[in-house]
């Protein structure tokens, strides 16, 4: 199903025949009620206390993609600094929270999340998106090779440049990665809306997470498809990241095309009702 239905926070339900159908629960449905949906559950667990039973059981439909954790389960605290604070420095609130955590039920931390200082959620997300068939080892090695390739290319440029230019050359692969993805994020997107039997492409503001997803998706698709058969992924990806960092290259062009199409269709903007 398209992202649009996620935006409306609908439930994913399957009918007895087994085909998934999105159930529209009305545009005024508050976002809180989406608690049973797997990923959305985390942020809303406190508010969704006891809400699971209130979810309307539409006849012939059962829930799919839900979390096995009940609403009483809290998220694990992975940050090392949280536990290292000496007792004297804690405020009343924090002391209460720590006491509470001893009694509360806590979910298991996912295997990919570590308390390492070098961990980066954006890199982890990108690695997961690159992964195929659950082969995280390969995806992670491709990611590290890409970062290394970016670093080496920048170092070569640095040594070949004059003293003034050296100050402008960025050698940190992580800043390059983040900046490149930021440059690829579209601000406005197009959504197909059904009106009078036809689907119209309506310009719509995109939420943050959709923008980040689109940037990463475009980057990965570009690197997978538009490369020579013998070229390796790290090589191509490092090249694309460097181009995107300088606001050039095919991914930034795709973002700009998206903006142009949204600008062209701005007459249809009133079809949007949210």
């Amino acid at each position, binding site marked *: 199903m398209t992202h649009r239905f996620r935006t409306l926070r609908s439930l994913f339900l399957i009918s007895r025949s087994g085909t998934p159908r999105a159930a529209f629960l009305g545009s005024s449905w508050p976002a809180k009620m989406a608690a049973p949906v797997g990923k959305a559950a985390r942020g809303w667990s406190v508010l969704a206390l006891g809400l699971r039973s209130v979810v309307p059981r539409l006849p012939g439909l059962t829930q799919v993609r839900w979390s096995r954790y009940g609403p009483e389960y809290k998220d694990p605290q992975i940050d090392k600094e949280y536990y290292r604070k000496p007792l004297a420095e804690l405020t009343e609130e924090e002391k209460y929270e720590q006491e509470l955590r001893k009694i509360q039920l806590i979910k298991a931390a996912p295997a990919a999340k570590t308390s*390492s*200082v*070098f961990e980066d959620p954006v890199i982890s997300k990108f690695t997961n998106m690159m992964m195929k068939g659950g082969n995280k080892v390969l995806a992670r090695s491709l990611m*590290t*090779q890409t*970062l*290394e390739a970016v*670093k*080496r290319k920048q*170092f*070569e440029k640095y*040594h070949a440049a004059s003293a003034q230019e050296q100050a402008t050359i960025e*050698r*940190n*692969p*992580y800043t390059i990665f983040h900046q490149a993805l930021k440059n690829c994020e579209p601000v406005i997107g197009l959504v197909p809306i059904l009106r009078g039997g036809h689907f119209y492409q309506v310009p719509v503001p995109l939420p943050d997470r959709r923008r980040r997803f689109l940037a990463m998706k475009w980057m990965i698709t570009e690197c997978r498809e538009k490369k020579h058969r013998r070229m390796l992924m790290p090589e191509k990806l490092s090249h694309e990241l460097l181009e995107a960092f300088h606001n050039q290259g095919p991914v930034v062009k795709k973002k700009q095309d998206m903006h142009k199409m949204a600008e062209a269709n701005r007459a249809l903007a009133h079809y949007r009702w949210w």
Partner: protein
Amino acid sequence: MLKRMTRLVSGARQLDPGRLLHGGPQAPQSLAAHPDNQVPDGSPRAVSCTSEGDPVRTFNEACLMVRRPALELLRYLKNTNFAHPAVRYVLYGEKGTGKTLSLCHVIHFCAKQDWLILHIPDAHLWVKNCRDLLQSTYNKQRFDQPVEASSWLKNFKTANERFLSQIKVQEKYVWNKRESTEKGRPLGEVVEQGLTRVRNATDAVGIVLKELKSQSRLGAFRLLVAVDGVNALWGRTTLKREDKSPVAPEELALVHSVRKMVRNDWHGGAIVLTLSQTGSLFKPRKAYLPQELLGKEGFDALDPFIPILVSNYSPKEFESCIQYYLENSWLQHEKAHTEEGKKELLFLSNANPGQLERLCAYL
């Protein structure tokens, strides 16, 4: 295991010989080809690298960390008695601890002292993935490897240009009906013959080794035989004949000549060897001891030798390695500068030099 030999045109900063003699921890990475006052500027030197990236392109320099095993070896070499038969030193250790780079350090030292260097960067490359195996012209039972032999001759020529004109051949060698090398001609001619006529390259290698071995006792030069991955000479090969029957290593002419070279029946130099599991065939991954990697045959052939263990970084070495990376801005991650980051790197790499390098590559 060495990946390749690259040429390095000297242009790096001058190396103070004192830095090598003191035990002070210096920088890692591959071989330094620093010119001293004795070596003329602009002379190309062959350099061997273990890492994926070329450190010269990355850092504009190539540096080595001075470590205990290399210093021990240098001390032994300085005190060698050239009248006694050549002593064999075997560097062994777990994967990634720095055996190859210690070998490179020793080679560099000997090159500075004007020894003749006979360096085989990776003996494993000679026993696997060989496209063309010709029947040897010299001995019908053995096989020639023209590609490997000619590339080795090229590197040998680059490394020892000066000696090629000084050393004279002591016998006449007939290559074919039209070509032959007379007695008394410089060794450079044999090398040229091997490079131009690739079919005779293996025989040229054999001749070069034989001549050097017989002439080292005369005292005109000191010979250093350095072989990386010497356990390849006594293991198994993955090469097959046309009828798909396997080839034993002793049936390869190159391996045969190097085995003769590594025997301690000559004097006037030293033999430094390295064991390596990384490129080896049919050996378990965890094997690193001489007995395990050489097998009975190899161990008996090399016995007696002086084993030198190369281990992981000590805390001081680790610290200096991190400092080197920080000075060169190789560690770009902002958390890598902190104590937390350093502790994490120590934990993740277990002070193993190879693992640390791979970790710091993407940080």
